[in-house]
């Protein structure tokens, strides 16, 4: 259990260097006599509706009707878990390429090719075609992002001030959740409001969300590259979202994803009961008093066979809340509208809601997390982030939590 505890000089040096660099940037910024303070811009994230997010990205280069763009993110990690550390390391999380083509006035194509950790995992995360009949009715088909929760639709790293993705968006909703599917979306406008809807049928999640190497109900393990090729059980999953945005304030959304997740039929013969999976999500964001608040809550209900035992949760839920406050706006080097944000995130997820049959005690298997930090945006498209985060993880029995904490520095930018 015990591993060698490494000295923390590396992390201290890193914090110190970051502080010095920020001081230097600030100093040079004050040299620029034409620096113009503008209103704080905490991020690019909340402009437009969540539904827009897939298209509301910077595309930098165009050839005829086709544009390309993308984003990259990298970060450092220094974590300590109950006094034990693996030391300091760095990771190139993602390098994603976007391709957008306005094929005609009503037909658009968008694709996103993702490289995780170099070439450790390469996936075509999005490849969809939209045919707009009316703003209130657009047909969509291809590899699309399931509209469940807001984060799954708007997950580009440069949009956030915290390096890690919210736990609820990766553990309760298996973001990034994309699948081959077809459906419709649209929007309508009234007064200061924009109402949006999405509705699709998709190849659903598969066996693996239980009886997996995570040892718990884990929706991420139900994802498979095969879902881009065929349904595992011949029953499409349904997913949809409705959202309401008030201009100048924020947006709320409720969403659903559900279907049959197990391969209950082989060679036409029914070999198991059909087992369902439902995910319900609520998301909201608003800017109040200059502070951006955004969060999401989600719950899933999984039909777990009794034979699998209580290790696998029948219900899971989680939530997160981000608060982002611009604390300084000004000029740095050539950037006339640079922003320094302070941010905090509170998170909770419960992998297994319920009580043990044998004892009546509450089942553990939950995580409380808090993250705080500062981010610096020389432009809205680029963010430098310094985060501290800590997790308290209870095992299924609810024993004393394992504490894990550390500091991350990262950069993420659109290009």
């Amino acid at each position, binding site marked *: 259990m015990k591993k060698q505890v490494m000295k923390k000089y590396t992390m201290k040096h890193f914090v110190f260097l970051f502080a010095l660099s920020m001081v230097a940037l600030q100093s040079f910024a004050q040299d620029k006599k034409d620096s113009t303070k503008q209103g704080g811009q905490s991020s690019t994230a909340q402009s437009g509706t969540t539904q827009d997010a897939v298209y509301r990205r910077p595309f930098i280069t165009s050839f005829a009707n086709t544009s390309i763009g993308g984003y990259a993110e990298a970060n450092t990690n220094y974590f300590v878990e109950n006094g034990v550390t693996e030391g300091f390391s760095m990771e190139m999380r993602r390098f994603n390429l976007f391709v957008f083509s306005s094929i005609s006035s009503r037909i658009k194509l968008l694709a996103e090719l993702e490289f995780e950790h170099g070439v450790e995992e390469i996936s075509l995360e999005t490849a969809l075609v939209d045919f707009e009949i009316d703003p209130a009715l657009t047909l969509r088909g291809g590899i699309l992002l399931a509209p469940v929760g807001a984060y799954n639709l708007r997950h580009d790293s440069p949009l956030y001030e915290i390096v890690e993705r919210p736990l609820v968006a990766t553990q309760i909703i298996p973001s990034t959740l994309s699948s081959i599917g077809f459906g419709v979306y649209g929007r309508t406008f009234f007064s200061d409001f924009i109402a949006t809807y999405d509705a699709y049928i998709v190849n659903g999640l598969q066996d693996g969300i239980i009886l997996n190497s995570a040892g718990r109900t884990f929706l991420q393990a139900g994802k498979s590259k095969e879902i881009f090729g065929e349904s595992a059980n011949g029953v499409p999953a349904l997913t949809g979202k409705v959202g309401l945005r008030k201009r100048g304030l924020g947006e709320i959304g409720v969403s659903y994803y559900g279907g049959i997740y197990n391969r209950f039929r082989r060679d036409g013969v029914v070999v198991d009961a059909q087992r369902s999976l439902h995910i319900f999500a609520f998301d909201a964001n608003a800017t109040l008093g200059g502070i951006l608040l955004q969060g999401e809550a989600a719950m899933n209900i999984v039909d777990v066979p009794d034979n699998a035992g209580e290790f696998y949760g029948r219900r899971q839920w989680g939530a997160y809340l981000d608060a982002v406050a611009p604390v300084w706006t000004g000029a740095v080097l050539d950037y006339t509208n640079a922003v320094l944000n302070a941010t905090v995130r509170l998170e909770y997820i419960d992998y297994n809601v319920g009580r043990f049959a*044998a004892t009546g005690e509450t089942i553990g298997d939950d995580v409380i997390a808090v993250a705080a930090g500062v981010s610096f945006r020389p432009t809205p498209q680029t963010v430098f982030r310094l985060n501290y985060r800590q997790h308290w993880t209870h095992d299924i029995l609810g*024993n004393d939590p394992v504490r894990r904490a550390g*500091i991350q520095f990262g950069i993420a930018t659109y290009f």
Partner: protein
Amino acid sequence: MKSITKKIFHKIAFLHYQTLVLMSVCLLALTACDILLPPAPAAEEVLGEPIDGLTAEQQATHIQGDGEFARIFGVAEGLGPMFNAASCESCHAGDGKGHALTTLTRFGRMNGSTFDPMITEGGPQLQNRSIAGYMPEALPAHASGVTHLLPPAVTGLGYLAAVPDEALLALADPNDRNGDGISGVPNELSPHEFFRPLPMHKQLNGRYIGRFGRKAGAIDLLQQVSAAYRNDMGITSDFISEELFNVQTGAFTGDNVPDPEVSASVVNNVVFYMRTLKVPPRRNADASNVKAGEQMFTRIGCAGCHVATLKTGASDIAALNEVEFHPYTDLLLHDMGAELDDGYTEGSAKTSEWRTTPLWGIGLSAKAQGGTASYLHDGRAKTLPDAIKLHGGESARSRDRFQTLSEAEKQQLITFLQSL
């Protein structure tokens, strides 16, 4: 360079106040690292630490084994088709005692004067969980002996494994020659097919002494671990390569993962990990009431079975080589009377006989059991006094003496137990 430095310091003198805030935050983070980064829990509060004095190679093997001990098996890795748990650690959280969630059920029946483990009906262990599309076992209606077994703590097992058989035989008193009412006997077992006798082992008419498991039904850790892989998790290994099938339903199909599902190296690494776990730490061992409680423990005869000190023999691990340690067990079987007779047994043990449970670590039980301790082989006792009350047979005399103690004396004894 000098001018740049001077310029920076000059600028620092005129910093914007926000920058001062930023600097403060960063400096706070810098100076507060030791507070913000979680320290290791107090050594006396945790199990699962490696023994001191391991070589670098031994530490590497220990860590490798630790990883395998924590490894969770899914269907794709060979879990099942029937199982009780998906990892070693799910039964032995933090290397400590288990919980009702992972209690094992074993069964059998008496066939005349011999015990039938009902192998043809899926015995002796009930695999009560299964992968999708496969049925778990059901308890046969005519099983007359059914016991429920809490997973034990796994710390300090290397010390217990290294005690020479001769030392255990010296503690045995099958005919109660000393007249103390206690007559420990070893569980004599036929060796498993991959058993390799060591100098510490003593052959007894082709049999060897069992020392692991509630009934001392395993001779060595290799047997214990490889059996747990197969019977608890449905994971085949080079040692036991036959898949676990449900003979009750005639489902002789496996989990579609080629056997063996783990190699001999994996099993051996886990064995090494368990051999090299520290003994459970004591707390407040020098407190006067703890010492008084230990004297009471000895005076009323508990130490007749829960022998305080054993000594290892020669070992290939220096830290385990001929050292005294304090497990509070004699590793022998004792008749515990009708109170704890579940009608189930293993090896040469009678159904009422149980191996003396090592008491070390008993004070930390709750920390691995979700905060609520449970005692005895099946967790039926929720307090230590309750556990003592359920001692019968050879331990009845000590139990009765405990009942005659004053409340203060009882509390001293309990305090001593909680210090273990």
